[in-house]
């Protein structure tokens, strides 16, 4: 007899979603002057959650001006230890309102509550705590004796980790003495707007943090705005390239955290069960909406069959469904557009000759869903081995020697992350040395920490977020 899990839904009564939101400019919510409104939906059931303002040119102007005034009159003049205390306050309020943030994140994004509760929101609070402590210690950051803030930072973030990406952007910027205008992703604006309330509760001086919601056009207005001194973007390599081009010839500083197509390399001496857990975590964590996802499994030929059998057994146990159910492993795809992209690339994978497999799994009727999927018989030329799918789709390739594994792993324009599974320490270190990727997880995967720098090589972007290195993006030295 099969044991089924009883539903274990997290209560939504903790969140209070308003029917409509304005822009957060200069410390208060204001109506858009020239922008329209758009709807944000719950991807798990397609119900409209709220109406959100789409910031137009004069809204972005106002937000940048507010950030400039706050920079010139308050924030840059404030001693580091005072800035630190504001950031500590924010970190504490995030902890106090952690469950509310987690539930709202899962509702707006579709990610399992287990992830938003146990990974995203704790990391958000930790990130503010970490950078709070830097605010009054900047001369010790190794960037010269007198590092100075840059001014106004224009920041554009993606929908896959809405609040965590906000923290990665805002915490170091504020600690270094900059003020910010941040644009959350079109499909996931709600936790950023709740964060705006947290700034109010913390009595953060008006204009230090401004949140302008909108789609790509709002982002373009922000990064190209003359009043912005620094641009930070996380998102696709395609858009990153456009931004880098648009900033050419200006004095604006730029950091980019872009796409990836990470190799997760399993050697024949790897502990199979642990490797399988790592592979599953690497590609199915957050529905595969992860730029550093281990989307290319490179497995040594001699253990490929055994490993794939174990992987399929494990995949059959993944629970796909209601993001708010505490037992859910894989939640909803964030949007109809993203679902379409995942479907299209998966169909291309089949038509190019790779073998597709998914465990039997019942998907809810409404909402955006995609079953965990693995492709075997994938070659390096296949599009599913080259392009970022950004969904729960794993491409499996094999290799015979460590040199071949390194060659295949590096055969990509990306260079964000990589995984190595082996019991042999010297092999791990040698392979890690040769992988052209900014984060290498050995015998683990998808681990994040505010003290640990994150960012890519090659076309995965430049600059680091997290750790001492993360400060460099926001300081002149």
């Amino acid at each position, binding site marked *: 007899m099969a044991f089924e899990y009883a539903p274990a839904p997290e209560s939504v009564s903790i969140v209070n979603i308003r029917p409509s939101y304005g822009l957060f400019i200069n410390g208060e919510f204001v109506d858009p002057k020239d922008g329209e409104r758009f709807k944000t939906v719950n991807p798990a059931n397609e119900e409209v959650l709220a109406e959100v303002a789409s910031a137009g040119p004069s809204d972005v102007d106002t937000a940048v001006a507010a950030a400039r005034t706050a920079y010139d009159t308050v924030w840059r003049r404030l001693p580091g230890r005072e800035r630190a205390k504001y950031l500590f306050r924010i970190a504490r309020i995030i902890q106090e309102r952690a469950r509310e943030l987690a539930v709202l994140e899962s509702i707006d994004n579709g990610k399992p509550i287990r992830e938003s509760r146990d990974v995203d929101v704790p990391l958000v609070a*930790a990130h503010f705590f970490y950078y709070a402590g830097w605010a009054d210690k900047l001369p010790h950051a*190794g960037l*010269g004796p007198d590092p100075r803030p840059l001014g106004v930072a224009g920041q554009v973030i993606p929908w896959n980790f809405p609040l965590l990406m906000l923290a990665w952007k805002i915490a170091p910027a504020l600690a270094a003495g900059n003020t910010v205008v941040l644009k959350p992703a079109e499909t996931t604006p709600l936790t950023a707007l709740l964060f705006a309330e947290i700034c109010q509760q913390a009595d953060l001086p008006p204009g230090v943090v401004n949140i302008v919601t909108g789609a790509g056009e709002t982002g373009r207005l922000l990064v190209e705005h003359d009043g912005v001194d620094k641009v930070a973007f996380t998102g696709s*390599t395609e858009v*990153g*390239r456009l931004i*880098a*081009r648009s*900033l*050419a*010839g200006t*004095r604006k500083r730029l950091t*980019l955290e*872009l796409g990836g197509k990470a190799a997760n390399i399993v050697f024949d001496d790897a502990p199979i069960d642990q490797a399988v857990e790592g592979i599953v975590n690497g590609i199915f964590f957050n529905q595969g909406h992860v730029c550093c996802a281990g989307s290319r499994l490179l497995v040594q030929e001699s253990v490929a069959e055994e490993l794939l059998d174990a992987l399929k057994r494990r995949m059959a146990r993944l629970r796909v469904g209601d993001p708010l159910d505490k037992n859910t492993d894989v939640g909803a795809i964030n949007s109809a557009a993203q679902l379409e992209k995942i479907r299209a690339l998966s169909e291309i994978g089949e038509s190019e000759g790779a073998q597709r497999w998914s465990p039997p799994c019942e998907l809810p009727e409404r909402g955006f869903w995609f079953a965990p999927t693995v492709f075997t018989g994938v070659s390096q030329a296949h599009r599913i081995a080259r392009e970022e799918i950004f969904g729960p789709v794993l491409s499996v390739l094999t290799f015979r020697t460590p040199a071949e594994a390194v060659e295949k792993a590096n055969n990509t*324009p990306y*260079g964000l992350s990589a995984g190595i599974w082996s019991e042999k320490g010297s092999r*791990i270190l040698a392979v*890690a*040395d040769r*992988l052209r*990727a*900014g*984060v*290498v*997880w*050995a*015998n*683990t995967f998808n*681990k994040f*920490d505010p*003290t*640990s*720098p*994150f*960012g890519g*090589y*090659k*076309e995965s*972007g*430049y600059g*680091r977020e997290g*750790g*001492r*290195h993360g400060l*460099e993006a926001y300081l002149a*030295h």
Partner: protein
Amino acid sequence: MPTESTSVSGAGRLAVRKTYKLFIGGAFPRSESGRSYAVTSSGGDFLANAALASRKDVRDAVRAARSAFGKWSAATAYNRGQILYRVAEMLEGRRAQFIDEVSAHGAGGDAASTVDAAIDLWVWYAGWSDKIAQVYGNANPVAGPYFNLSSPEPTGVVGLVAPQESPLLGLVATLAPIIVTGNTAVVLAAEDRPLPAITLAEVLTTSDLPGGVVNLLTGRIAETVPWLASHMDVNGLDLAGVTDPALAADLEAAAADNLKRVVRPPAAPVDWHADPGVGRMIPFLETKTVWHPKGA
């Protein structure tokens, strides 16, 4: 250079002039285009014909730099430091020649002190080879049972437009920080003052620096550098010597095609004698962070 020669008439002997060529993959070819351009002194006197590099020369230089990258980036930091120090020794041996060339170019200031500063700066950078990872790397105290270490690694092949106004010191101040960390370089020498750069190439090739680590071209910036900026196998671009803002913007935009790391032209004139700090090494370093669980 003709400045050293004496007249054929009278008792003096006729000097043997040097042909100033390109430096690609450890060899000294002429431009494949067969072209050259006249280099004159600050007073307008003929000094030499320098090779006028073409698009093909740029591509050959990039290929040589890519081939050299694997071995140079994997060399031990100690080894790179030894080689760079050897370069300084060779520079010192040619001190008089560099003083002649720098003063012929009329590159401002006292030529002897400029050459001395260039040699000393090269020594300074040589010493960084096995220290930058300690200064710019990090052990990270993550909140869990993990070993977590961040280390700098070279970005790859870096294109450098050498400063125009300071043909030796400016070149040293921009080239040394690129290669000391394990990058390989394709350099466009100062357009109208290329002679010290070519002599530097002769120094490099007699200093155990593997062929291809530094490749040096002479020619027109506006003609050659766009090919470097848009080349998909170049990872970084230092525009120190680009003086035309519109060209610099175009180059930066072209560099975005494969998201090259770009160092923009300086906003204000640079004092190449000043302590440079680590600011010219960091732009062409990638930080790699390795995690591993701890457990008995």
